[in-house]
């Protein structure tokens, strides 16, 4: 329960920022599919520019294989930092850093495997208000089984395709 409340709290910060006294105003919403070692994730994201040159994106997604075909919630929360190094009229390209936590739970509040990761990559976006994006990441992931202290470090990748709407 605490996990979900935390997720919703983070989302409400970004989605309702206009109504509260925050300086963060989301200006982009995205739907992203991410092909990675563990599963194919579908995520919803909202992002905003905390500086003119730096965007922060918060995503919530689920692993499709586990969640929909095996009815076990495989959820993921990502925090992505992006900057546009090359900026043209219809496309942008720049480096990106992604931090994630993932949780596989056959019963909603009983995880059996936990992951965390830190990855570096790039983000390419094409379009105007409606953009198509492609990102790739490579980095380290840590995983452990619930109730087992030993952690396993391994190289992980993510190849992403997304659709983004800019306000």
């Amino acid at each position, binding site marked *: 329960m605490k996990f979900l409340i935390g997720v919703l709290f983070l989302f409400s910060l970004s989605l309702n920022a206009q109504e509260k006294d925050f300086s963060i105003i989301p200006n982009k919403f995205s739907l992203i599919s991410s092909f990675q070692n563990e599963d194919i994730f579908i995520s919803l994201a909202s992002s905003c520019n905390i500086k003119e040159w730096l965007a922060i994106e918060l995503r919530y997604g689920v692993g499709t294989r586990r969640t929909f075909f095996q009815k076990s919630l495989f959820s993921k929360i990502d925090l992505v930092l992006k900057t546009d190094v090359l900026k043209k009229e219809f496309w942008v390209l720049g480096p990106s850093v992604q931090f994630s936590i993932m949780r596989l739970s056959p019963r909603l509040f009983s995880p059996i495997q936990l992951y965390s990761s830190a990855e570096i990559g790039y983000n390419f976006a094409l379009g105007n208000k409606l953009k198509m994006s492609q990102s790739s990441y490579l980095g380290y992931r840590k995983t452990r*089984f619930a109730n087992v202290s030993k952690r396993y470090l391994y190289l992980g990748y993510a190849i992403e395709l997304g659709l983004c709407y800019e306000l």
Partner: protein
Amino acid sequence: MNYKIILIFIVLFFSCKKKEQSSVVVIGHGGNGLEFEGSIYHGNSKEAMDFTFANPNADGVELDLRMAADGSLWLSHDETLETETKSTGCVGDKNEEELAGIKYNSLQNEKLAKLTDIISFQTSDKSIFVDVKHANTCQNNIQEVATYLAVLDEWKQTISNSNKRIYIILNTVDWTEPFILAGWQVLYSSDDSAVRNQLTNDYPSIKGFVCKNSLCSKIQVNEIKSKGKEIYLYEVRSPKSLKEVREKNPTGVMSDDVQGAILEFK
């Protein structure tokens, strides 16, 4: 408000009564999966074995065993090294020094694993299924069964409760009797029911069989079990094939998607 509706939906969807637990035993094929994109580690690597052994919900691992030129035992599915590693040649033609440094062509860059280096096998309570590869295809000859038995016996002494935990998988009839007489729990790998029936008659103390999921029907699984034999299905990767295995209800599944099998059967 919308997110509250989404939350209620998620809670209802995942709070529904789960399917009943199954008695099917979950074995990691090649450790944590062979040729499966969701596997973190390369099949038959030490890391794959350790990883599945650490999974509290997995029941054991299956590994492919080959004998090197000097009699040491190595985990490798393929006889030729160039298919999966940065090296060339055959496992059976090389000695320990040559094999020790070989790495897989994989993201994690794992090394080729020697059987005796997998310490996690020694004191666990999980099962180990050893698929004994008897042929040296590069030399076009068969290994000596007596040599194999001697080396395996030496390794067995390091494994706790080995008589119950270790299964030998064979696919040559000639080796069945020597292994059974030496006290091993023997499973024979065959997709042919006629072969299985013959072996059951010829070797009553054979433990059971291993069969490809796509080639072994529910009727055949029930037939094997009715004779008091164990049956393990392999080549299981997708959620659909896991559901098929559940329907067939074998003794166990050697799954390439280990976590998927755990979700299905545990």
